[in-house]
């Protein structure tokens, strides 16, 4: 039952990832990526990481991809035009490297064939996945947690400064240099 659901989600993930890479229209690529993230969230739910599954939808599918879509619509991007011999040669090399990677991965996996344990005891059932993650996050991983908040603040400031534009950047150059 679980395996059947997993195969379904996995197939959806692989197909949508392929469509992200293959489709010429960037908006359609972004939408296929949203679908890929949602199927990945489904796989997380099957692996008993329900907090991560929901956070995946909230953060990746609900915020990051919306940001992508905003930028694509703002830049008003049309279909990608990919003609020409040079580009075709590059494409060929790219696919060759990808297939090579896949074959290497398959060969390595065949060697170290790792099966799951025979019987399963569910750890998260008693205390709940979210509570357990919270306990670990605020004790062992408190320092990375705090550093991540500073990272996000730096990213926010960086985005505002970068995306502000030339004229206002020039005019406020002295002020920003002195104040920032």
């Amino acid at each position: 039952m679980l395996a059947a659901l997993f195969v379904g989600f996995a197939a959806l993930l692989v197909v949508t990832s392929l469509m992200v890479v293959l489709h010429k229209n960037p908006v359609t690529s972004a939408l296929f990526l949203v679908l890929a993230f949602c199927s990945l969230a489904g796989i997380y739910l099957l692996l008993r990481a329900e907090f991560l599954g929901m956070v995946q939808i909230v953060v990746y599918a609900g915020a990051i991809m919306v940001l992508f879509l905003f930028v694509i619509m703002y830049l008003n991007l049309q279909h990608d035009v990919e003609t020409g011999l040079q580009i075709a040669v590059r494409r060929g090399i790219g696919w060759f490297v990808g297939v090579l990677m896949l074959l290497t991965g398959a060969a390595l996996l065949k060697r170290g064939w790792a099966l799951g344990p025979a019987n399963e005891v569910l750890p998260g059932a008693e205390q709940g996945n979210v509570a357990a993650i919270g306990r670990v996050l605020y004790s062992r991983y408190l320092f990375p947690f705090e550093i991540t908040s500073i990272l996000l603040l730096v990213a926010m400031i960086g985005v505002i400064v970068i995306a502000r534009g030339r004229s206002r950047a020039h005019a406020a150059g002295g002020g920003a240099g002195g104040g920032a």
Partner: protein
Amino acid sequence: MIPLSWLIALSAVVFAIGVVGVLVRRNALVIFMSIELMLNAANLAFVAFANQMKSLDGQVFVFFVMTVAAAEVAIGLAIIVHLFRLRETVFVDEIHLLKG
């Protein structure tokens, strides 16, 4: 119960698709999306191992990867927007001013 090898194989396949996307496409935004695919493939490997070893460390690390990916996407897109304003294009092979 999902065998670990299936999960790792899936992660490898998605990662390979992401690599192909980065190498094949010219549009900077699609390249960025393929990078996100690669990050998510790594996340899947983390969660698979967290499930296998019954430890939560893998899931906590995925939490941090998601946060860092969000910050990276924000800054990356800001850079791409700025680049578009300057060069009027998002195709990476048309931005070659630093070429020797």
